[in-house]
């Protein structure tokens, strides 16, 4: 059984295009049509970087068995949900992951929202971009570790995807990890605080997993305007120091 690992020194690479994407905008269009918004994104990027404290906690557990859509893990906990058994079936290990940017950024966004919503939204967009960069970096780190032993990793799956309800999935992940170690907690609605946090699981196994992206499993994919946008988990670069 593996102990949980906390990594604090993430150096995220985020640029102004990512901040614009974080606001749901297409950078190539905005650069031509509203250059002022690019300036605002650059300002948000500069300030936002000083407000985040990226940190991740993860724990890798061996899979003891997969029965009736339920993974039984080496510490006695269980992960259940149709998409998990469907997409993580080849997994010999499963990593439970929670990462966050801390709460300073969202406090600043909240303060600014009434006085300068445009800039506040740009800062929030920076937060979304940085959160995706951090999620991608954590997955990349685990993938690199897996490759050293000739293993593969799956697409990350987060609670809230089709067939894995938010409250069910969050309870499962938070029973595996002590996310309080990095300052992340759940409220009664299974919502994480700080808001700019991600929880997910990643399969690790000897045989390759199926291809896929987070958007393929998202419950909002029929109506989302921003699905499959560039840079969703894996497009960003990050290194651990």
């Amino acid at each position, binding site marked *: 059984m593996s102990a949980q690992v906390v990594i604090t020194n993430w150096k995220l690479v985020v640029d102004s295009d990512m901040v614009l994407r974080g606001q749901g905008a297409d950078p190539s269009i905005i650069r031509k049509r509203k250059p002022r918004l690019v300036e605002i994104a650059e300002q948000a990027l500069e300030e936002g970087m000083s407000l985040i404290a990226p940190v991740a906690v993860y724990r890798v557990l061996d899979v003891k068995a997969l029965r009736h859509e339920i993974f039984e893990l080496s510490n006695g906990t269980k992960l259940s949900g149709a998409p998990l058994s469907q997409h993580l079936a080849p997994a010999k290990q499963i990593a439970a992951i929670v990462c966050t940017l801390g709460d300073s950024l969202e406090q600043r966004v909240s303060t600014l*929202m009434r006085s300068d*919503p445009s800039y506040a939204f740009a800062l929030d967009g920076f937060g979304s971009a940085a959160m995706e960069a951090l999620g991608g970096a954590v997955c990349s780190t685990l993938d690199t570790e897996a490759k050293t032993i000739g293993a593969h990793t799956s697409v990350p799956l987060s609670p809230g995807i089709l067939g894995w309800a938010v409250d069910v999935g969050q309870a499962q992940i938070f029973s595996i990890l002590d996310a309080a170690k990095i300052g992340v907690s759940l409220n009664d609605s299974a919502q994480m605080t700080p808001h700019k946090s991600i929880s997910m699981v990643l399969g690790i196994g000897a045989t390759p997993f199926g291809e896929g992206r987070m958007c393929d499993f998202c*419950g909002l994919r029929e109506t989302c305007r921003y699905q499959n946008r560039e840079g969703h988990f894996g497009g960003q670069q990050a290194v651990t120091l």
Partner: protein
Amino acid sequence: MDIKSLYDAVVEGEVKAVAEGVRQALADGIPAEKILSEALVPAMSEVGRLFEAQEFFVPEMLISAKAMQAGLVILKPQLAKNNAQAGGKIAIGTVKGDLHDIGKNLVIMMLEGTGYQVVDLGVDVPPEKFIKEVRDGAQLIGMSAMLTTTMPSMEATINALKEAGVRDQVKVMVGGAPLTENYASAIGADGYAQDASAAVRRATELLA
């Protein structure tokens, strides 16, 4: 700056140009009501239309709203002097258990930009706060939820409005990523809006 140029400046989100244009228009003798009704409000309606048509992105809508606010600040003293009518009182909050506020804030900006008096109740709002706002004169309440786990708080709030005997005094509009028109109807809401621009349109219909 003439009315057409002001309209264009709001659509383009040119904050300084709108502020200067409104001052100039007032100095040229154009009535505040005309500036509001023929330039600022229709410009924001056009921005909303472009957003709903997926031609504009959210930050473009926000910078236009900021430009409109810059003009409104200058117009307000004149409008108050002329007793211009406000659009109505609306109270908005993210429902109990839910801490998401970006969508709610966008809706508030758009409603204020259209001339409504909006009370921002914040996030994690219990039914009692909505009831109090209705008793204090809100004609419409807007509820936002971002999670399937917090959507039931909307129905609980509507039931609480009924139990408090104030449901008939107020229109109820709901919105948020996991919601649908069918869900809104099933819980007894009067209206559903899928985004900030649609929320303005729907509120206007409900308060007509």
